[in-house]
């Protein structure tokens, strides 16, 4: 059965590449991009072989770096790329496969993929680092296996758990709470680090690594280090703990799989029998295509789990910068002036792949022949609302925290400019470079296979254009803030506002014109059934 599922995964991957050769380009990009990072890490691990094993930097570096890698396996799927849905347990619900076998097969087939391949390579290379002695290499080999198992299971369990949470109102509240706790934890961590930053020495790093080595993130990675220091008991204890963690995660994954197989639809259903009387926003906004689209998007933000995440996260993300700065409360308090700009950036990034979220429902816009500009503008309205409300709040907050009220008009102008430029570019990329996203019924933490590369290209294009447009205004503003001439302030204000609004208008106009002539092509690209 395990071999079957593995073969299925490989066949699906091959067929999807054959179906859409463009994915191959994306995959090549992914290999180049991720491959570079993996190669660097592997080279570093080999170089560390020549380090003094007991008192050198190998142990702390591998423990800290490895812990970050494990953390990335939880965080990245949840907030960025998601997990692969081709082998979602719910798809096997109608087959009579024991859930334990299924869970094992799915976990093993999760190893097929670039992130798992890269992690395995890095973990295997750490054996080289510890190959001073046979026992050390053996311990490193066991820890490498445990690391790979921990990573793949962790991402599977984490996303299964989080997506089941997102389905209920209580779960959504829980996620908001967790986000808030994370932010508070980050403040605490940042202020501690801020205190340490003055004395960033090897001793400090080693001390931190030693603490991390006793947390679940570091157990497996630090076992060879303990042996190298002559602490066999510590090494074995850490390996045992890491093994226990894998067993625990495996148990949780079997439980999650069994739960999904027994109730495959449970993941996707909205709180059933939800009823909404009347027209909602469709009755309140003006009766015109633009406003109808705006009303539809705003309604989806509330009811579609894929939008809910960003609806919650979008206004909260800049808080991180604001509060971190509060914690540092030192020399560079002007950094808080950038808070509204962080919001503006995300407001611009938000709609950069908006059409893809419609999936084939976008056909309604094609058959009704709605004007392209109305489609473009209507979809921006929710983001404009966030910009108006949260943007104003953050501009005021930045003024209060820094006391630099003289800079506030400039900050407000830059916010408008950055958001406008982003939304304008997004209005183009969402019709020109749409990339696959999970459907409304899918796990919101999943990524259609082979889409990582195309999403990467679209995001790179967006970022490069956004930076190019915003750089002149931001540079002038920074110059004035750091002691440049007075005219730089007004030049910055004028340049960003004019450029931002011009790009916004251009994006809506050209994106709309493209849609008027090529709506069918956009539909073909976002229709996942094809």
């Amino acid at each position, binding site marked *: 059965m395990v071999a079957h599922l593995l073969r299925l995964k490989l066949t699906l991957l091959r067929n999807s590449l054959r179906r859409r050769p463009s994915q191959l380009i994306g995959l090549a990009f992914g290999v180049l991009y991720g491959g570079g990072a993996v190669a660097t890490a592997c080279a570093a691990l080999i170089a560390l072989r020549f380090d003094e094993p007991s008192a050198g930097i190998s142990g702390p570096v591998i423990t800290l770096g490895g812990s970050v890698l494990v953390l990335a396996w939880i965080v990245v799927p949840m907030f960025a790329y998601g997990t692969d849905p081709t082998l979602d347990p719910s798809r096997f619900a109608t087959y009579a496969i024991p859930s334990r076998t299924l869970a094992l097969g799915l976990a093993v087939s999760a190893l097929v993929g670039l992130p798992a391949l890269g992690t395995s390579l890095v973990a295997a290379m750490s054996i080289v680092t510890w190959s001073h002695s046979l026992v050390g290499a053996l311990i490193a080999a066991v820890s490498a296996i445990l690391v790979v198992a921990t990573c793949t299971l962790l991402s599977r369990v984490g996303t299964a758990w989080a997506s089941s949470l997102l389905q209920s109102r209580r779960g959504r509240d829980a996620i908001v709470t967790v986000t808030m706790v994370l932010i508070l934890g980050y403040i605490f961590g940042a202020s501690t680090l801020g205190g340490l930053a003055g004395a960033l020495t090897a001793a400090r790093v080693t001390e931190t690594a030693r603490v991390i080595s006793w947390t679940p993130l570091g157990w497996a990675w630090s076992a060879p280090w303990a042996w190298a220091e002559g602490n066999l008991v510590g090494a074995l204890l850490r390996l045992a703990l890491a093994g226990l963690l894998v067993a625990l995660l495996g148990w949780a994954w079997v439980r999650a799989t069994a739960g999904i197989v027994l109730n495959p639809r449970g993941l996707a*259903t*909205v709180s*059933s*029998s*939800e*009823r*909404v*009387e*009347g*027209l*909602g926003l*469709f*009755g309140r906004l003006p*009766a*015109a*295509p633009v*406003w*109808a*689209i705006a*009303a*539809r998007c705003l*309604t*989806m933000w509330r*009811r*579609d789990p894929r939008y809910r995440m960003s609806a919650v996260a979008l206004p909260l993300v800049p808080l991180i910068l604001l509060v971190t700065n509060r914690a540092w409360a030192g020399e560079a308090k002007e950094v808080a002036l950038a808070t509204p700009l962080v919001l503006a950036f995300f407001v611009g990034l938000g709609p950069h792949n908006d059409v893809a979220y*419609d*999936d*084939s*429902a976008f*056909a*309604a*816009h*094609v*058959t*009704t*022949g*709605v004007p392209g500009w109305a489609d473009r503008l209507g979809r921006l309205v929710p983001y404009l609302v966030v910009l108006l409300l949260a943007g104003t709040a953050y501009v005021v907050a930045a003024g209060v925290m820094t006391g630099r009220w003289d800079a506030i008009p400039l900050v407000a102008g830059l916010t408008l400019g950055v958001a406008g430029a982003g939304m304008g570019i997004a209005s183009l990329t969402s019709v020109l470079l749409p990339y696959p996203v999970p*459907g*409304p*019924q899918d796990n919101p933490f999943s990524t259609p296979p082979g889409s990582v590369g195309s999403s990467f290209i679209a995001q790179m294009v967006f970022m490069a254009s956004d930076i190019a447009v915003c750089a002149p205004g931001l540079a002038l503003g920074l110059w004035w803030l750091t002691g440049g001439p007075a005219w730089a302030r007004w030049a910055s204000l004028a340049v960003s506002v004019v450029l931002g609004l011009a790009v916004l208008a251009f994006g809506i106009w050209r994106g709309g014109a493209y849609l*008027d002539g090529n*709506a*069918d*092509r956009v*539909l*073909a690209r976002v*229709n996942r*059934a094809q």
Partner: protein
Amino acid sequence: MTESPLDAMSTPTAPSAAGQPLPPPTGARADLPPPRAVARTGEIAIGCRGLVRTFGQTVAVGGLDLDVPKGSFFGLVGPNGAGKTTTLSMVTGLLRPDSGTVSVLGHDVWTDPVAAKRLLGVLPDGLRLFDRLTGLQLVTYSGLLRGMDRDTVVSRAHELLGALGLAGDASALVVDYSAGMTKKISLACALVHAPRVLVLDEPFEAVDPVSASTIKEILDAFVDSGGTVVLSSHVMELVERLCSDVAVIAAGQVRAVGTVDEVRGGRSLEERFVDLVGGRTHVQGLEWLRTFSD
């Protein structure tokens, strides 16, 4: 919009009252349902010329010519994979033909899309809806996208939901609808702007018999007041009873086209269809299916 066919919906006339059935051709079976009579003006509602569409190596539609007379109730039948959905998608602006032209009442769909789409009401098959909206919101959305004013949209939406038996579920989310209810709400979306030409891909699939007869009644009234309906279906009896004209397509080509009587030529449409399309396989083997494996 005032002279639109839908406005006459409230006073439907029985299809049989519209004309006397023709005497059956000699040697014809006597049990065939009488063909539907329609007023013919000689105008063309939908004209396809040399439509070609390929997907990679597969030719879905290969040089298809088809004229749908204005005022007809036109059935498009064909086996699975014949190119029905591909053809209808090219007619409605959802899929660009590799070559060939489509016009709706004289407006080219691909060079003058705004005018052509205004005349069309479309029920696509196999595409998603904005299903996180309620039924009422979805129909309202379709109307507003067409630039209609809200009072008209809302009153028509309520009327349509009532007629289609969805009034009780107007405030439920479309994602919670059954397959048949989803079909009906899509039909309501296609009708709300009172189009001249309705293009319906499998409108009766998954619809229960009671709703099906309601839909038939609505479409009958639409045709009786001068509208044109094109629908695709696998169910020959349904096309035979409902349609005035029929086209049989297979492998991306029109095999036969004309009034229902012309095409069936005195036999049942199903017999004629199997003749035209051919390729009926006789079930051999599968004996193991009679011995259960538990």
